[in-house]
């Protein structure tokens, strides 16, 4: 278990090399080896989606992947969304439309939504609703998450 392996990957555009046990999940590696605690763990069994990050631009559950599987990949987390002081349109929309309450599920929803909208900027509401139902939120009843993502989609199409 303790034979550590080197993993080299790009996190939010920065090349990183970490040494981890093969059993280390990508989520734990991001949180503990890279110090990026914005990626949250809500269930560690792949249901809640709070740990969603983008791996080569696709949303993945970072709790269901080993860090070693991310070798050579490009990983994007919530910490990489804003450009300096300027929030990403999704972050701005979540702020404007009260798309978060306790904020624990928010990084996962943001990364999921980034993945969805980058893949399909014109996604229709029913398909968007279906795609966003991948993740759980316990505070908002999803009303303002949907509203926020729709508003961001419109903004990003401009």
């Amino acid at each position, binding site marked *: 278990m303790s034979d550590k392996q080197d993993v080299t990957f790009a996190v939010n555009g920065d090349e990183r090399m970490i040494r981890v046990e093969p059993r*280390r999940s990508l989520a734990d590696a991001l949180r503990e080896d890279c110090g990026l605690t914005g990626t*949250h763990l*809500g269930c560690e069994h792949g*249901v809640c989606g709070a740990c969603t990050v983008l791996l080569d631009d696709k949303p993945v559950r970072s709790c269901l992947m080993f860090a070693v599987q991310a070798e050579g990949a490009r990983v994007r987390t919530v*910490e990489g969304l804003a450009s300096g002081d300027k929030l990403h349109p999704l972050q701005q929309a979540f702020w404007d439309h*009260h798309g978060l309450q*306790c*904020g624990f599920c928010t990084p996962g929803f943001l990364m999921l939504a980034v993945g969805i909208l980058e893949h399909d900027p014109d996604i229709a509401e029913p398909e968007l609703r279906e795609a966003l139902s991948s*993740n759980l939120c316990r505070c908002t*009843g999803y009303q303002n998450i949907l509203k926020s993502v729709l508003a961001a989609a419109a903004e990003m199409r401009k």
Partner: protein
Amino acid sequence: MRWIGRPLPRYEDPVLLQGRGRYTADLAQGARILRFVRSPVARGRILAVNAPPGVAIVTAAVLGDVKPICPRLDRRDYVPVAQPILADERVTYVGEPIAAVIADTAAEAEDLAEQVTVEIAGETPVVTLDQALAPGALLVHDMAAQNTLIDARFETPGIAAALAAAHQAVEFTFTSGRQAAAPLEARGAVAAFDSATGRVTLWASTQMPHLLRTGIADALGIPESELRVVAPEVGGGFGQKMALVPEYVVAVWAARRFACSVAWIEDRLENLTASFHARDQRLHMRGAFDAEGRLLAIDADVLCNVGAYSNFPATCGVEPLMALADMPGPYRVPEYRARARGVASNTCPMAPYRGVSRPVITAAIERLMDCAAARLGLDALEIRRRNLTAEFPHTSVTGVVHDAGSYREAMEAAARVVDFAQFRARQQTVRADGRWLGLGISVFAERTGPGTPAFAARRMVITPGFERVELVMDPSGFLEARIGSSPHGQGLKTTLAQLIADEIGVAPGEIRVVAGDTDRTPYGWGTFASRSLVIAGGACKLAAATLRERLQAVAGQILEAAASDIEIDDGRAFVRGTDLGVEVRQLARAAYHQSHRFPAIAETGLSAVATYDPYGTFSNACHVAIVAVDVATGQVEIERFVVVEDAGRLINPMIVEGQIHGGVAQGIANALYEEVVYDDDGNILTGSLADYLVPTMAEIPRLEIHHLETLTEASVTGAKGVGEGGTIGAPAAVLNAVSDALAPFGVGIFEMPITPQRILQLLGEAGRKAQ
């Protein structure tokens, strides 16, 4: 410029949106990791706890004289039971902590915990209400005869006559499954020992930092000053995090014993099995109506399966006593009899969960109304019109005082929004195509912001209620409001800043609200019972009014005018009707650095303290659900959901609606999806979020919200609480709608969650009966 009433974006959000919020697990870097060894069986005698060779583990024996958790009510009908921090002789539910291990990493701690073996002589557990109450049932606790931890009664003298005189009597048994609050962030604690001061700082995912400090200090027998409790960002609580838990006591104990930092980060399995549950209730209801549909009496027998222990500080009385006192809800109930019992079982203990009993009693009462209406040939609106309280203040049969509300108006407004007549026509039309639509309504009053009088009436030995606020302006003119409430997602810091801003005349962006740190805030009770806006908000307003007077005194001195002629707006103090003025920032600078000029504020400077302890105030609402039931699959789809809410004055309407959204989603979950299931041996079958079905965006429909604003004198800000109403009202509306859809089949719903399997089962039974 006025700030109250604006949908101001939250000051809390930028940090959270960028992943910079610090939740408890984010603070665990460098700490040693604590892992609990939990009981694999529901009931038994511990024969041995074996540590792996060469490993020191923490057991009850090692903890020595650490005191158990023993929550108390000052009532003869209540039996206090003491919960050991770690199980010593017996285990009483699956998941009960027996031992703890400490390792350098989470993975190593898990490995170690798996190597601890526990030998238990298993016994047949008492899992259900029926098992616990059966004659000769095994006792969960020897001192609690018939497994009854609380047995409260209420009876008016005329009850028997009223029941006998009934034109219509409606009687049924209503059941609610067990729910878990399931906050997205599970519980967690980081306890750090400081060798310089000998103090421990505990960061914990809690709703009540001060009470946690009291509870832990009492358990360890140390002065409270040796412990600082901080609630950092908290990822939802919903009541589950308003109790003292053994794990936190062990964390603080270990930090002191080993002079280090230790962290316990709960996993989801632990959270679903060994944190707290709620709602496992069965109500036997009897309602007596006269020929016009007026309610004459309610006779209710309330049974709550409260699990193995009582929670601190609310106790296991929280659900039964809420049901007993608040059963009549928004209706005039002349005669009332109720018995409400909290029954112990070998299951996970109960804690308050958003709504506390009221989702269940509201569903039962609203089903009662619909059943009586059907018998009497009245519609759902008419029977409620004849029974809703319309005169305020209204004192209920149990002595609870309802302040001004809009019970009937909210229902009539909802009826206008939905257009019942048009729905009935459509319902008829689509039935021909085999589509079964139903409409259900739910009218309720939500007691919010209860102060000490409400909790004293429950006879809690620890009586929560007041809130104290310290408001300080610093020399640069910025304000800090230190509150005892402990928000965890509600946006309270933004809302309170809006309240204070208007009271003083400054911008809310210049006000920092400090919460959740026992070293930084006055002793308070935390955030629960829809209380923080009402009570901490009230205290903020009172403190701000005093501080404004102090600023007026300083400004009067500087501007050579009477303090009473000074107005403050947009950060500037000026003599009314003139352009003679001075910036608040200059006042602040002068008040500190030339204090000799301002004898009027010599004692206090630019600070103010206020305490608010109201009786409480009632929000009210009407929910309407329109559902489609697929009778082939049992699937329920919510087509439309309307809420007409009266939460008094809206300070931040966007935040208020957010509270309603989240509450309704949890209520829909109660009605249709979520249930903690135990097998006969007391094992939990719903230990993951793949089994315990928290609804997703696919299940929660668009929610339409409309507001009424009854201004009340029961709250100094005019605001009523709104944290729980969504959860309280939604189940009743959904169940009434499903019952309405299935009425042609002779099916009525008296249980929740009403899952597809249960609907099919009821349709099958009804079909067999019809043959």
